[in-house]
Protein backbone atom coordinates (compact mmCIF):
# COMPACT_ATOMS: atom_id res chain seq x y z
CA UNK A 1 0.00 0.00 0.00
CA UNK A 2 2.88 2.36 0.65
CA UNK A 3 3.78 2.04 -3.02
CA UNK A 4 0.39 3.42 -3.99
CA UNK A 5 1.62 6.99 -4.32
CA UNK A 6 4.41 5.87 -6.64
CA UNK A 7 2.08 3.70 -8.74
CA UNK A 8 -0.55 6.43 -8.93
CA UNK A 9 2.02 9.04 -10.00
CA UNK A 10 3.44 6.70 -12.62
CA UNK A 11 -0.01 5.92 -14.00
CA UNK A 12 -0.59 9.60 -14.70
CA UNK A 13 2.79 10.17 -16.36
CA UNK A 14 1.02 11.07 -19.60
CA UNK A 15 -2.40 12.33 -18.64
CA UNK A 16 -3.93 12.22 -22.10
CA UNK A 17 -2.72 8.71 -22.79
CA UNK A 18 -3.89 7.36 -19.45
CA UNK A 19 -7.24 9.12 -19.74
CA UNK A 20 -7.79 7.68 -23.22
CA UNK A 21 -6.92 4.20 -22.03
CA UNK A 22 -9.26 4.52 -19.07
CA UNK A 23 -11.99 5.72 -21.41
CA UNK A 24 -11.60 2.71 -23.68
CA UNK A 25 -11.77 0.43 -20.65
CA UNK A 26 -14.81 2.41 -19.51
CA UNK A 27 -16.54 1.82 -22.84
CA UNK A 28 -15.75 -1.89 -22.75
CA UNK A 29 -17.26 -2.36 -19.30
CA UNK A 30 -20.23 -0.16 -20.12
CA UNK A 31 -20.92 -2.49 -23.04
CA UNK A 32 -20.44 -5.45 -20.76
CA UNK A 33 -23.08 -4.11 -18.38
CA UNK A 34 -25.58 -3.33 -21.13
CA UNK A 35 -25.11 -6.62 -22.96
CA UNK A 36 -25.33 -8.62 -19.73
CA UNK A 37 -28.62 -6.91 -18.99
CA UNK A 38 -29.91 -7.77 -22.46
CA UNK A 39 -28.73 -11.34 -22.02
CA UNK A 40 -30.71 -11.43 -18.78
CA UNK A 41 -33.87 -10.38 -20.61
CA UNK A 42 -33.62 -13.35 -22.97
CA UNK A 43 -33.21 -15.85 -20.18
CA UNK A 44 -35.57 -14.09 -17.81
CA UNK A 45 -37.73 -17.15 -17.12
CA UNK A 46 -34.74 -19.10 -15.86
CA UNK A 47 -34.00 -16.41 -13.30
CA UNK A 48 -37.21 -17.10 -11.43
CA UNK A 49 -37.15 -20.86 -11.81
CA UNK A 50 -37.67 -22.87 -8.68
CA UNK A 51 -36.15 -26.34 -8.36
CA UNK A 52 -39.24 -27.66 -6.59
CA UNK A 53 -41.60 -26.57 -9.35
CA UNK A 54 -42.55 -28.66 -12.37
CA UNK A 55 -44.27 -27.55 -15.58
CA UNK A 56 -46.72 -29.86 -17.36
CA UNK A 57 -47.37 -29.00 -21.01
CA UNK A 58 -49.09 -30.70 -23.91
CA UNK A 59 -46.58 -33.06 -25.50
CA UNK A 60 -47.31 -31.73 -28.98
CA UNK A 61 -46.30 -28.16 -28.15
CA UNK A 62 -46.65 -25.59 -25.44
CA UNK A 63 -49.47 -23.85 -27.30
CA UNK A 64 -51.70 -26.91 -27.44
CA UNK A 65 -54.11 -26.77 -24.49
CA UNK A 66 -54.70 -29.43 -21.83
CA UNK A 67 -58.07 -30.34 -20.33
CA UNK A 68 -58.85 -28.79 -16.94
CA UNK A 69 -59.93 -32.27 -15.89
CA UNK A 70 -56.28 -33.30 -15.63
CA UNK A 71 -55.82 -31.16 -12.54
CA UNK A 72 -57.28 -33.62 -10.03
CA UNK A 73 -55.31 -36.52 -11.47
CA UNK A 74 -52.08 -34.54 -11.30
CA UNK A 75 -52.84 -33.45 -7.74
CA UNK A 76 -53.37 -37.09 -6.75
CA UNK A 77 -49.95 -38.16 -8.06
CA UNK A 78 -47.66 -39.13 -5.15
CA UNK A 79 -45.11 -36.42 -4.37
CA UNK A 80 -47.24 -33.54 -5.66
CA UNK A 81 -47.92 -30.94 -3.00
CA UNK A 82 -49.98 -28.37 -4.87
CA UNK A 83 -51.01 -27.71 -8.47
CA UNK A 84 -52.20 -24.69 -10.37
CA UNK A 85 -52.76 -23.90 -14.01
CA UNK A 86 -51.83 -21.09 -16.35
CA UNK A 87 -53.11 -19.92 -19.70
CA UNK A 88 -51.53 -17.40 -22.01
CA UNK A 89 -54.01 -14.59 -22.53
CA UNK A 90 -51.91 -12.50 -24.93
CA UNK A 91 -53.66 -9.15 -24.60
CA UNK A 92 -52.52 -5.58 -24.70
CA UNK A 93 -53.47 -2.33 -22.98
CA UNK A 94 -54.74 0.50 -25.22
CA UNK A 95 -52.04 0.11 -27.88
CA UNK A 96 -50.65 -3.01 -29.54
CA UNK A 97 -47.20 -1.95 -28.38
CA UNK A 98 -48.24 -2.21 -24.74
CA UNK A 99 -48.03 -5.99 -24.61
CA UNK A 100 -47.39 -7.70 -21.33
CA UNK A 101 -48.25 -11.07 -19.86
CA UNK A 102 -51.71 -11.81 -18.44
CA UNK A 103 -52.77 -15.16 -17.01
CA UNK A 104 -56.21 -16.39 -15.97
CA UNK A 105 -55.62 -18.44 -12.80
CA UNK A 106 -57.24 -19.84 -9.68
CA UNK A 107 -56.19 -17.37 -6.92
CA UNK A 108 -55.67 -19.78 -3.99
CA UNK A 109 -53.95 -22.49 -5.99
CA UNK A 110 -51.75 -20.00 -7.78
CA UNK A 111 -50.45 -18.42 -4.60
CA UNK A 112 -49.79 -21.80 -3.01
CA UNK A 113 -47.50 -22.72 -5.91
CA UNK A 114 -45.94 -19.29 -6.47
CA UNK A 115 -45.12 -18.67 -2.83
CA UNK A 116 -42.59 -15.93 -3.68
CA UNK A 117 -45.40 -13.51 -4.55
CA UNK A 118 -46.48 -11.11 -1.82
CA UNK A 119 -50.00 -9.64 -1.70
CA UNK A 120 -51.67 -8.06 1.35
CA UNK A 121 -54.39 -10.36 2.75
CA UNK A 122 -57.24 -7.88 2.35
CA UNK A 123 -56.30 -7.31 -1.32
CA UNK A 124 -56.19 -11.05 -1.90
CA UNK A 125 -59.68 -11.45 -0.35
CA UNK A 126 -61.07 -8.61 -2.45
CA UNK A 127 -59.65 -10.19 -5.62
CA UNK A 128 -60.99 -13.64 -4.74
CA UNK A 129 -64.48 -12.26 -4.21
CA UNK A 130 -64.61 -10.18 -7.39
CA UNK A 131 -65.15 -12.31 -10.52
CA UNK A 132 -63.77 -9.58 -12.78
CA UNK A 133 -61.04 -8.65 -10.32
CA UNK A 134 -57.38 -8.72 -11.27
CA UNK A 135 -54.07 -8.14 -9.55
CA UNK A 136 -51.03 -6.59 -11.21
CA UNK A 137 -47.33 -6.65 -10.43
CA UNK A 138 -45.68 -3.62 -8.88
CA UNK A 139 -43.47 -2.91 -11.93
CA UNK A 140 -46.51 -3.07 -14.22
CA UNK A 141 -48.57 -0.80 -11.98
CA UNK A 142 -45.70 1.68 -11.88
CA UNK A 143 -45.32 1.75 -15.64
CA UNK A 144 -49.00 2.39 -16.42
CA UNK A 145 -49.77 4.35 -13.26
CA UNK A 146 -52.45 1.88 -12.13
CA UNK A 147 -53.87 1.92 -8.63
CA UNK A 148 -56.15 -0.36 -6.67
CA UNK A 149 -59.73 0.43 -7.69
CA UNK A 150 -58.93 1.27 -11.33
CA UNK A 151 -60.96 -0.41 -14.05
CA UNK A 152 -58.81 -1.26 -17.06
CA UNK A 153 -59.70 -2.66 -20.51
CA UNK A 154 -57.42 -5.31 -21.99
CA UNK A 155 -57.70 -6.07 -25.72
CA UNK A 156 -57.53 -9.74 -26.52
CA UNK A 157 -55.56 -11.01 -29.53
CA UNK A 158 -56.59 -14.64 -29.06
CA UNK A 159 -59.56 -14.94 -26.76
CA UNK A 160 -62.64 -13.29 -28.18
CA UNK A 161 -65.61 -13.27 -25.82
CA UNK A 162 -68.69 -15.36 -26.42
CA UNK A 163 -70.52 -12.15 -27.34
CA UNK A 164 -67.90 -11.45 -30.03
CA UNK A 165 -66.16 -8.65 -28.14
CA UNK A 166 -62.42 -8.41 -27.79
CA UNK A 167 -62.23 -5.97 -24.91
CA UNK A 168 -62.01 -7.50 -21.45
CA UNK A 169 -62.48 -5.21 -18.48
CA UNK A 170 -60.90 -5.86 -15.10
CA UNK A 171 -61.00 -4.21 -11.67
CA UNK A 172 -57.58 -3.91 -10.10
CA UNK A 173 -58.01 -5.30 -6.60
CA UNK A 174 -54.39 -5.63 -5.61
CA UNK A 175 -50.78 -4.94 -6.46
CA UNK A 176 -48.31 -7.71 -5.71
CA UNK A 177 -44.56 -7.72 -5.21
CA UNK A 178 -42.03 -10.56 -5.26
CA UNK A 179 -39.45 -11.90 -2.84
CA UNK A 180 -37.27 -12.72 -5.87
CA UNK A 181 -34.88 -9.98 -6.94
CA UNK A 182 -34.49 -8.94 -10.54
CA UNK A 183 -36.38 -7.14 -13.27
CA UNK A 184 -39.34 -9.01 -14.72
CA UNK A 185 -40.43 -10.51 -11.40
CA UNK A 186 -43.59 -8.37 -11.24
CA UNK A 187 -44.35 -7.45 -14.82
CA UNK A 188 -47.52 -9.54 -15.29
CA UNK A 189 -51.21 -9.54 -14.44
CA UNK A 190 -53.40 -12.27 -12.93
CA UNK A 191 -57.18 -12.62 -13.13
CA UNK A 192 -59.83 -15.20 -12.35
CA UNK A 193 -59.98 -18.31 -14.52
CA UNK A 194 -63.67 -18.89 -13.72
CA UNK A 195 -64.62 -15.59 -15.32
CA UNK A 196 -62.30 -16.20 -18.27
CA UNK A 197 -63.60 -19.70 -18.97
CA UNK A 198 -67.25 -18.66 -18.89
CA UNK A 199 -66.83 -15.56 -21.00
CA UNK A 200 -64.58 -16.84 -23.78
CA UNK A 201 -65.95 -17.90 -27.17
CA UNK A 202 -64.00 -21.15 -27.52
CA UNK A 203 -61.60 -23.45 -25.78
CA UNK A 204 -63.81 -23.83 -22.73
CA UNK A 205 -62.67 -26.41 -20.22
CA UNK A 206 -59.02 -26.20 -21.27
CA UNK A 207 -55.99 -24.54 -19.77
CA UNK A 208 -52.52 -23.75 -21.17
CA UNK A 209 -50.23 -25.61 -18.81
CA UNK A 210 -50.00 -26.84 -15.25
CA UNK A 211 -47.46 -25.78 -12.65
CA UNK A 212 -46.97 -27.85 -9.55
CA UNK A 213 -44.87 -27.89 -6.43
CA UNK A 214 -43.41 -31.23 -5.31
CA UNK A 215 -42.99 -32.34 -1.71
CA UNK A 216 -39.54 -31.36 -0.42
CA UNK A 217 -38.54 -35.04 -0.02
CA UNK A 218 -39.90 -36.16 -3.38
CA UNK A 219 -37.69 -36.65 -6.43
CA UNK A 220 -38.88 -34.17 -9.08
CA UNK A 221 -37.75 -36.44 -11.92
CA UNK A 222 -39.77 -39.40 -10.62
CA UNK A 223 -42.83 -37.22 -10.09
CA UNK A 224 -42.50 -35.89 -13.65
CA UNK A 225 -42.28 -39.43 -15.06
CA UNK A 226 -45.28 -40.55 -13.03
CA UNK A 227 -47.40 -37.70 -14.38
CA UNK A 228 -46.41 -38.30 -18.00
CA UNK A 229 -47.11 -42.02 -17.67
CA UNK A 230 -50.63 -41.39 -16.41
CA UNK A 231 -51.51 -39.55 -19.59
CA UNK A 232 -49.54 -41.66 -22.02
CA UNK A 233 -51.70 -42.81 -24.94
CA UNK A 234 -54.48 -40.44 -24.00
CA UNK A 235 -55.79 -37.79 -26.38
CA UNK A 236 -53.54 -35.23 -24.77
CA UNK A 237 -50.17 -36.62 -23.80
CA UNK A 238 -48.12 -34.49 -21.43
CA UNK A 239 -44.50 -33.51 -21.09
CA UNK A 240 -43.34 -32.58 -17.61
CA UNK A 241 -40.07 -30.85 -16.85
CA UNK A 242 -38.57 -28.75 -14.10
CA UNK A 243 -39.29 -25.06 -14.35
CA UNK A 244 -35.60 -24.42 -14.88
CA UNK A 245 -35.22 -26.85 -17.78
CA UNK A 246 -38.39 -25.52 -19.32
CA UNK A 247 -37.24 -21.89 -19.07
CA UNK A 248 -33.81 -22.76 -20.44
CA UNK A 249 -35.20 -24.57 -23.46
CA UNK A 250 -37.64 -21.73 -24.06
CA UNK A 251 -34.80 -19.21 -24.02
CA UNK A 252 -33.06 -21.31 -26.67
CA UNK A 253 -36.01 -20.73 -28.98
CA UNK A 254 -34.61 -17.27 -29.60
CA UNK A 255 -31.46 -18.79 -30.99
CA UNK A 256 -28.22 -18.71 -29.16
CA UNK A 257 -28.41 -15.07 -28.08
CA UNK A 258 -25.94 -15.81 -25.30
CA UNK A 259 -23.37 -16.98 -27.83
CA UNK A 260 -23.77 -13.85 -29.93
CA UNK A 261 -23.46 -11.64 -26.85
CA UNK A 262 -20.35 -13.49 -25.75
CA UNK A 263 -18.77 -13.18 -29.22
CA UNK A 264 -19.34 -9.43 -29.24
CA UNK A 265 -17.90 -9.07 -25.76
CA UNK A 266 -14.90 -11.19 -26.73
CA UNK A 267 -14.20 -8.84 -29.65
CA UNK A 268 -14.61 -5.81 -27.37
CA UNK A 269 -12.29 -7.11 -24.69
CA UNK A 270 -9.72 -8.36 -27.15
CA UNK A 271 -9.49 -4.84 -28.57
CA UNK A 272 -9.41 -3.38 -25.08
CA UNK A 273 -6.52 -5.63 -24.09
CA UNK A 274 -4.55 -4.53 -27.10
CA UNK A 275 -5.11 -0.86 -26.31
CA UNK A 276 -4.27 -1.20 -22.63
CA UNK A 277 -1.33 -3.52 -23.26
CA UNK A 278 0.09 -1.19 -25.86
CA UNK A 279 -0.23 1.76 -23.48
CA UNK A 280 1.58 -0.11 -20.75
CA UNK A 281 4.43 -1.22 -22.94
CA UNK A 282 4.84 2.29 -24.35
CA UNK A 283 4.89 3.62 -20.85
CA UNK A 284 7.49 1.09 -19.72
CA UNK A 285 9.65 1.73 -22.77
CA UNK A 286 9.72 5.41 -21.92
CA UNK A 287 10.98 4.93 -18.42
CA UNK A 288 13.51 2.17 -18.66
CA UNK A 289 16.13 4.37 -17.03
CA UNK A 290 13.73 5.28 -14.21
CA UNK A 291 13.07 1.62 -13.55
CA UNK A 292 16.81 1.08 -13.44
CA UNK A 293 17.11 3.89 -10.89
CA UNK A 294 14.50 2.20 -8.72
CA UNK A 295 16.54 -0.97 -8.83
CA UNK A 296 19.71 0.98 -8.03
CA UNK A 297 17.96 2.38 -4.97
CA UNK A 298 17.39 -1.16 -3.78
CA UNK A 299 13.98 -2.11 -5.23
CA UNK A 300 14.04 -5.82 -5.99
CA UNK A 301 13.16 -7.25 -9.41
CA UNK A 302 9.89 -8.56 -7.97
CA UNK A 303 8.81 -5.23 -6.50
CA UNK A 304 9.51 -3.51 -9.82
CA UNK A 305 7.39 -6.17 -11.51
CA UNK A 306 4.56 -5.56 -9.07
CA UNK A 307 4.60 -1.79 -9.42
CA UNK A 308 4.21 -2.09 -13.20
CA UNK A 309 1.53 -4.76 -12.91
CA UNK A 310 -0.30 -2.81 -10.25
CA UNK A 311 -0.28 0.22 -12.50
CA UNK A 312 -1.97 -1.76 -15.28
CA UNK A 313 -4.52 -3.10 -12.79
CA UNK A 314 -5.16 0.39 -11.45
CA UNK A 315 -5.91 1.76 -14.92
CA UNK A 316 -8.19 -1.21 -15.66
CA UNK A 317 -9.94 -0.87 -12.31
CA UNK A 318 -10.69 2.82 -12.68
CA UNK A 319 -12.16 2.28 -16.16
CA UNK A 320 -14.04 -0.84 -15.12
CA UNK A 321 -15.63 0.70 -12.04
CA UNK A 322 -16.71 3.78 -13.98
CA UNK A 323 -18.06 1.64 -16.83
CA UNK A 324 -20.01 -0.68 -14.55
CA UNK A 325 -21.34 2.26 -12.54
CA UNK A 326 -22.64 4.12 -15.57
CA UNK A 327 -23.88 0.84 -17.07
CA UNK A 328 -25.79 0.07 -13.90
CA UNK A 329 -27.42 3.52 -13.91
CA UNK A 330 -28.32 3.12 -17.58
CA UNK A 331 -29.84 -0.32 -17.01
CA UNK A 332 -31.92 0.94 -14.09
CA UNK A 333 -33.07 3.90 -16.17
CA UNK A 334 -33.98 1.80 -19.22
CA UNK A 335 -35.72 -0.74 -17.05
CA UNK A 336 -38.04 1.84 -15.53
CA UNK A 337 -39.01 2.82 -19.10
CA UNK A 338 -39.26 -0.49 -20.93
CA UNK A 339 -39.08 -3.05 -18.12
CA UNK A 340 -42.47 -4.64 -18.72
CA UNK A 341 -41.56 -5.59 -22.29
CA UNK A 342 -37.83 -6.22 -21.92
CA UNK A 343 -36.82 -6.71 -18.30
CA UNK A 344 -33.21 -5.52 -17.98
CA UNK A 345 -31.21 -6.38 -14.89
CA UNK A 346 -27.61 -6.65 -13.80
CA UNK A 347 -27.31 -9.77 -11.70
CA UNK A 348 -24.78 -10.05 -8.84
CA UNK A 349 -23.16 -12.73 -10.99
CA UNK A 350 -22.58 -10.17 -13.74
CA UNK A 351 -20.69 -8.00 -11.28
CA UNK A 352 -18.55 -10.93 -10.18
CA UNK A 353 -17.80 -11.78 -13.82
CA UNK A 354 -16.87 -8.18 -14.52
CA UNK A 355 -14.51 -8.21 -11.57
CA UNK A 356 -12.82 -11.38 -12.79
CA UNK A 357 -12.51 -9.96 -16.32
CA UNK A 358 -11.04 -6.79 -14.86
CA UNK A 359 -8.35 -8.65 -12.94
CA UNK A 360 -7.52 -10.99 -15.81
CA UNK A 361 -7.40 -8.15 -18.35
CA UNK A 362 -5.23 -6.10 -16.01
CA UNK A 363 -2.77 -8.95 -15.59
CA UNK A 364 -2.72 -9.79 -19.30
CA UNK A 365 -2.16 -6.20 -20.37
CA UNK A 366 0.51 -5.56 -17.73
CA UNK A 367 2.40 -8.82 -17.64
CA UNK A 368 4.65 -8.40 -20.69
CA UNK A 369 5.82 -4.87 -19.80
CA UNK A 370 6.12 -5.93 -16.16
CA UNK A 371 8.34 -8.85 -17.08
CA UNK A 372 10.38 -6.58 -19.30
CA UNK A 373 10.78 -4.19 -16.36
CA UNK A 374 11.71 -7.03 -14.04
CA UNK A 375 14.38 -8.49 -16.33
CA UNK A 376 16.00 -5.12 -16.93
CA UNK A 377 19.66 -5.10 -15.90
CA UNK A 378 20.66 -1.87 -14.24
CA UNK A 379 23.98 -1.36 -15.93
CA UNK A 380 22.54 -1.84 -19.47
CA UNK A 381 19.54 0.36 -18.79
CA UNK A 382 21.58 3.17 -17.26
CA UNK A 383 24.09 3.03 -20.08
CA UNK A 384 21.20 3.35 -22.58
CA UNK A 385 19.53 6.18 -20.69
Amino acid sequence: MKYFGLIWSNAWRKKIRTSLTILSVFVAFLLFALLSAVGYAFGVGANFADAERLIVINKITLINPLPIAYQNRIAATPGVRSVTHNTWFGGYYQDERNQFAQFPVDPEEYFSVYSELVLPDEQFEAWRKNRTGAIVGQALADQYGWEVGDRIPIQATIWTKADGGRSWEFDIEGIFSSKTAGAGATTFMLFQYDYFDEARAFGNGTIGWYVLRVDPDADPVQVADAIDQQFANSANETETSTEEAFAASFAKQYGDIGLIVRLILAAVFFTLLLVAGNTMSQSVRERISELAVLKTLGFTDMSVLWTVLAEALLILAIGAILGLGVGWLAVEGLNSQFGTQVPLYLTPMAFVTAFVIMVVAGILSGIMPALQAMRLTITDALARG
Partner: protein
Amino acid sequence: MSKPLAKLQGVSRVYQKGKERVEVLHDIDVEIPEGDFIAIMGPSGSGKTTLLNLLGGLDKPDAGTVVVGDAELSSMSNSQLSHWRATHVGFIFQFYNLLPVLTAQKNVELPLLLTRFSSKERAERAAIALDIVGLADRAKHYPRELSGGQEQRVAIARAIVSDPTLLLCDEPTGDLDRETADEILKLLQILNKEHGKTIVMVTHDAQAAEYANRTLLVDKGKLGFKAAA
Protein backbone atom coordinates in the same frame (compact mmCIF):
# COMPACT_ATOMS: atom_id res chain seq x y z
CA MET B 1 44.64 5.63 8.10
CA SER B 2 41.43 3.99 9.39
CA LYS B 3 40.30 0.46 8.50
CA PRO B 4 39.19 -0.13 4.91
CA LEU B 5 35.45 0.19 4.18
CA ALA B 6 35.73 -1.44 0.79
CA LYS B 7 38.22 -3.92 -0.52
CA LEU B 8 38.61 -5.22 -4.08
CA GLN B 9 40.95 -8.18 -4.54
CA GLY B 10 42.02 -9.61 -7.88
CA VAL B 11 38.95 -8.21 -9.61
CA SER B 12 38.49 -8.69 -13.35
CA ARG B 13 35.50 -7.75 -15.47
CA VAL B 14 35.11 -8.82 -19.08
CA TYR B 15 32.37 -7.76 -21.52
CA GLN B 16 31.45 -9.56 -24.67
CA LYS B 17 30.92 -6.96 -27.38
CA GLY B 18 29.71 -8.91 -30.38
CA LYS B 19 32.60 -11.24 -31.16
CA GLU B 20 35.10 -9.08 -29.36
CA ARG B 21 36.12 -9.74 -25.78
CA VAL B 22 36.81 -6.53 -23.87
CA GLU B 23 38.54 -6.83 -20.53
CA VAL B 24 37.49 -3.62 -18.79
CA LEU B 25 39.23 -4.35 -15.48
CA HIS B 26 42.16 -6.68 -15.07
CA ASP B 27 43.24 -8.12 -11.74
CA ILE B 28 42.56 -5.02 -9.69
CA ASP B 29 43.38 -4.66 -6.01
CA VAL B 30 42.18 -1.59 -4.20
CA GLU B 31 41.22 -0.59 -0.67
CA ILE B 32 38.96 2.31 0.21
CA PRO B 33 39.36 3.48 3.80
CA GLU B 34 36.26 4.47 5.78
CA GLY B 35 35.69 8.23 5.73
CA ASP B 36 37.77 8.78 2.58
CA PHE B 37 36.76 10.92 -0.44
CA ILE B 38 38.28 9.43 -3.57
CA ALA B 39 38.03 10.70 -7.13
CA ILE B 40 38.44 8.21 -9.97
CA MET B 41 39.75 9.59 -13.22
CA GLY B 42 40.65 8.14 -16.54
CA PRO B 43 39.83 8.28 -20.23
CA SER B 44 36.49 7.14 -21.63
CA GLY B 45 36.07 3.38 -21.60
CA SER B 46 38.82 2.91 -19.04
CA GLY B 47 36.51 1.12 -16.58
CA LYS B 48 35.73 3.96 -14.15
CA THR B 49 31.99 3.37 -14.19
CA THR B 50 32.46 -0.39 -14.06
CA LEU B 51 34.53 0.04 -10.92
CA LEU B 52 31.80 2.19 -9.40
CA ASN B 53 29.09 -0.32 -10.37
CA LEU B 54 31.08 -3.12 -8.73
CA LEU B 55 31.37 -1.11 -5.53
CA GLY B 56 27.63 -0.44 -5.55
CA GLY B 57 26.64 -4.03 -6.19
CA LEU B 58 25.11 -3.19 -9.56
CA ASP B 59 27.54 -5.45 -11.36
CA LYS B 60 29.52 -8.54 -10.44
CA PRO B 61 33.17 -9.33 -11.20
CA ASP B 62 34.16 -12.27 -13.40
CA ALA B 63 37.04 -12.97 -11.03
CA GLY B 64 38.11 -11.73 -7.59
CA THR B 65 36.12 -10.49 -4.60
CA VAL B 66 34.39 -7.25 -3.71
CA VAL B 67 33.84 -6.65 0.01
CA VAL B 68 32.06 -3.57 1.30
CA GLY B 69 31.70 -3.31 5.09
CA ASP B 70 30.70 -6.83 6.22
CA ALA B 71 29.19 -7.77 2.90
CA GLU B 72 30.86 -9.90 0.25
CA LEU B 73 29.08 -8.46 -2.78
CA SER B 74 30.63 -10.82 -5.30
CA SER B 75 28.85 -13.81 -3.78
CA MET B 76 25.41 -12.28 -3.13
CA SER B 77 22.26 -12.91 -5.16
CA ASN B 78 20.49 -10.15 -7.05
CA SER B 79 17.77 -9.77 -4.48
CA GLN B 80 20.28 -9.81 -1.60
CA LEU B 81 22.14 -7.07 -3.42
CA SER B 82 18.91 -5.07 -3.76
CA HIS B 83 18.30 -5.20 -0.02
CA TRP B 84 21.92 -4.36 0.71
CA ARG B 85 21.87 -1.35 -1.62
CA ALA B 86 18.72 -0.01 -0.01
CA THR B 87 20.52 0.64 3.29
CA HIS B 88 24.26 0.70 2.65
CA VAL B 89 24.91 2.77 -0.40
CA GLY B 90 23.68 5.97 -2.04
CA PHE B 91 23.98 6.73 -5.77
CA ILE B 92 24.36 10.09 -7.49
CA PHE B 93 24.21 10.20 -11.31
CA GLN B 94 25.31 12.66 -13.97
CA PHE B 95 21.72 13.20 -15.17
CA TYR B 96 20.26 13.14 -11.63
CA ASN B 97 17.75 10.40 -12.60
CA LEU B 98 14.91 11.78 -10.53
CA LEU B 99 11.48 10.36 -11.27
CA PRO B 100 9.71 13.11 -13.23
CA VAL B 101 6.29 12.09 -11.92
CA LEU B 102 7.21 12.64 -8.25
CA THR B 103 7.87 15.84 -6.29
CA ALA B 104 11.31 16.50 -4.79
CA GLN B 105 10.02 15.39 -1.39
CA LYS B 106 8.57 12.13 -2.81
CA ASN B 107 11.74 11.45 -4.80
CA VAL B 108 13.79 11.70 -1.63
CA GLU B 109 11.33 9.46 0.21
CA LEU B 110 11.63 6.75 -2.44
CA PRO B 111 14.43 4.70 -0.81
CA LEU B 112 12.59 4.85 2.52
CA LEU B 113 9.68 2.90 0.96
CA LEU B 114 12.02 -0.09 1.30
CA THR B 115 12.29 0.40 5.06
CA ARG B 116 9.83 -0.11 7.90
CA PHE B 117 9.40 3.60 8.54
CA SER B 118 5.86 4.95 8.77
CA SER B 119 4.77 7.52 6.22
CA LYS B 120 5.20 10.26 8.85
CA GLU B 121 8.75 9.15 9.64
CA ARG B 122 9.53 8.94 5.94
CA ALA B 123 8.35 12.51 5.43
CA GLU B 124 10.39 13.75 8.40
CA ARG B 125 13.57 12.06 7.26
CA ALA B 126 13.17 13.28 3.69
CA ALA B 127 12.66 16.81 5.02
CA ILE B 128 15.88 16.58 7.01
CA ALA B 129 17.78 15.33 3.97
CA LEU B 130 16.39 18.16 1.83
CA ASP B 131 17.37 20.60 4.56
CA ILE B 132 20.95 19.29 4.53
CA VAL B 133 21.23 19.93 0.78
CA GLY B 134 19.61 23.36 1.25
CA LEU B 135 16.38 22.70 -0.64
CA ALA B 136 13.82 22.62 2.19
CA ASP B 137 11.79 25.24 0.32
CA ARG B 138 11.61 23.23 -2.91
CA ALA B 139 10.05 20.08 -1.42
CA LYS B 140 6.78 20.39 -3.36
CA HIS B 141 8.40 21.07 -6.73
CA TYR B 142 8.56 18.59 -9.56
CA PRO B 143 11.97 17.93 -11.17
CA ARG B 144 11.00 19.88 -14.31
CA GLU B 145 10.47 22.93 -12.10
CA LEU B 146 14.04 22.81 -10.73
CA SER B 147 17.38 23.90 -12.15
CA GLY B 148 20.08 21.32 -12.90
CA GLY B 149 21.96 22.13 -9.71
CA GLN B 150 18.80 21.87 -7.66
CA GLU B 151 17.93 18.54 -9.27
CA GLN B 152 21.36 17.23 -8.36
CA ARG B 153 20.88 18.40 -4.77
CA VAL B 154 17.59 16.49 -4.63
CA ALA B 155 19.43 13.45 -5.98
CA ILE B 156 22.04 13.87 -3.23
CA ALA B 157 19.31 14.14 -0.62
CA ARG B 158 17.83 10.92 -1.99
CA ALA B 159 21.25 9.25 -1.76
CA ILE B 160 21.76 10.15 1.89
CA VAL B 161 18.21 9.79 3.19
CA SER B 162 18.61 6.16 4.25
CA ASP B 163 21.90 7.11 5.95
CA PRO B 164 24.29 4.88 3.98
CA THR B 165 28.01 4.89 4.79
CA LEU B 166 29.07 4.88 1.14
CA LEU B 167 28.14 7.44 -1.54
CA LEU B 168 28.92 6.58 -5.16
CA CYS B 169 28.88 9.47 -7.62
CA ASP B 170 29.08 9.01 -11.41
CA GLU B 171 30.09 12.33 -12.99
CA PRO B 172 27.93 14.28 -10.55
CA THR B 173 28.91 17.63 -12.08
CA GLY B 174 29.15 16.49 -15.70
CA ASP B 175 26.00 18.31 -16.73
CA LEU B 176 26.49 21.47 -14.65
CA ASP B 177 28.21 24.81 -15.16
CA ARG B 178 31.38 25.60 -13.21
CA GLU B 179 29.75 27.64 -10.48
CA THR B 180 26.99 25.16 -9.80
CA ALA B 181 29.46 22.30 -9.99
CA ASP B 182 31.58 23.91 -7.28
CA GLU B 183 28.54 24.23 -5.02
CA ILE B 184 27.71 20.54 -5.49
CA LEU B 185 31.30 19.54 -4.81
CA LYS B 186 31.40 21.65 -1.65
CA LEU B 187 28.25 19.91 -0.53
CA LEU B 188 29.92 16.54 -1.10
CA GLN B 189 32.89 17.73 0.91
CA ILE B 190 30.62 18.71 3.80
CA LEU B 191 28.94 15.31 3.66
CA ASN B 192 32.39 13.73 3.81
CA LYS B 193 33.83 15.86 6.59
CA GLU B 194 30.83 16.61 8.78
CA HIS B 195 28.60 13.57 8.20
CA GLY B 196 31.41 11.05 7.86
CA LYS B 197 30.29 9.67 4.48
CA THR B 198 32.80 7.72 2.46
CA ILE B 199 32.61 9.04 -1.10
CA VAL B 200 33.79 7.57 -4.36
CA MET B 201 33.37 9.92 -7.31
CA VAL B 202 33.99 9.20 -10.98
CA THR B 203 34.83 12.32 -12.95
CA HIS B 204 36.94 13.51 -15.81
CA ASP B 205 37.01 17.06 -14.57
CA ALA B 206 40.42 17.67 -12.94
CA GLN B 207 39.03 20.63 -10.96
CA ALA B 208 36.31 18.43 -9.51
CA ALA B 209 38.90 15.85 -8.51
CA GLU B 210 40.67 18.44 -6.45
CA TYR B 211 37.82 18.42 -3.94
CA ALA B 212 38.63 14.80 -3.16
CA ASN B 213 41.30 13.65 -0.71
CA ARG B 214 42.92 11.43 -3.29
CA THR B 215 42.64 10.63 -6.97
CA LEU B 216 42.71 7.13 -8.37
CA LEU B 217 43.76 6.83 -12.02
CA VAL B 218 42.28 4.07 -14.14
CA ASP B 219 43.65 3.25 -17.55
CA LYS B 220 43.39 0.12 -19.70
CA GLY B 221 42.08 -1.88 -16.77
CA LYS B 222 44.91 -0.92 -14.40
CA LEU B 223 44.96 1.38 -11.38
CA GLY B 224 47.33 3.78 -9.79
CA PHE B 225 47.05 6.52 -7.18
CA LYS B 226 48.00 9.95 -8.36
CA ALA B 227 50.71 11.48 -6.25
CA ALA B 228 49.19 13.86 -3.72
CA ALA B 229 49.28 17.36 -5.09
